[in-house]
């Protein structure tokens, strides 16, 4: 399914965003990730599957456990959180420019 590989589709879901935020601090097993949510374990597994399919997460076998961690390279596609931050400042500065231009023309 093509749609699942779309990174922005993947991060549009609040639970999946929360999973990504959770994993910014350290890698975790599916069980530990699920314990952070009220959602049923299979639902969390589904989210992990989608995030893995679109390569935002990587799986790593450590002994008997599978750990999930962020795929740094793929996360750069969402610009390491910088892009939304930048967009907010750009909107704000566009507004500044607009306000000051109308202020200038009123003088």
């Amino acid at each position, binding site marked *: 399914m093509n749609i699942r590989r779309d990174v922005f589709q993947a*991060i*549009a879901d*609040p639970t999946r*965003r929360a999973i990504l*935020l959770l994993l*910014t601090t350290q890698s975790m097993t599916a069980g530990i990730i699920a314990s952070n949510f009220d959602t049923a374990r299979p639902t969390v597994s589904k989210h992990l599957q989608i995030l893995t399919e679109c390569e935002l997460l990587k799986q790593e076998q450590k002994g008997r456990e599978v750990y999930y961690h962020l795929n740094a390279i793929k996360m750069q596609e*969402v610009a*390491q*959180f*910088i892009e*939304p*931050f*930048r*967009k*907010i*400042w*750009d909107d*704000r*500065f*566009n*507004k*500044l*420019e*607009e*306000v*000051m*231009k109308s*202020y*200038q023309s009123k003088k």
Partner: protein
Amino acid sequence: MELKTQVKAEDGKQEIFITREFDLPVELLFKAYSEAELIEQWMGTKVIRLENKNLGFYQFETSQNGNVVFRANGAIHRVVENQKIIRTFEMENTSIGVQLEFLDFEKISMERSKLTIQIIYQTENQRAAQLKLPFASGLNAAHNRLQEIAISKR
């Protein structure tokens, strides 16, 4: 549309650089930061107090439906007209803490100017928390908007 604003946040550092060129004389760009009435217009927040001078201070507040949703304040350390503002910034009720901000205003030509903001956080984690904020809330806002559109189309 291409964004005119640059954001630099290097790994392993606790600072952010924000730069932007404006189609405005530097005097007007500086004015946008020094007059309460203008700040209110472009920041979309209420200016409760502002003394834009050496050892001055400011306080911003935004309300929605009677509830305060954003409150920030800071001390203004130094102001050099049309050149520089050095101040602290703290958004209340967040874990981001106090930031030190260096705002540099530069003249490019009679009609163009450049603003460089260097924001220094106490820790790398606080910088990360700041960067994540719009990531989460921005997408939420987009969602709400989509929902509104979906509802209005029913």
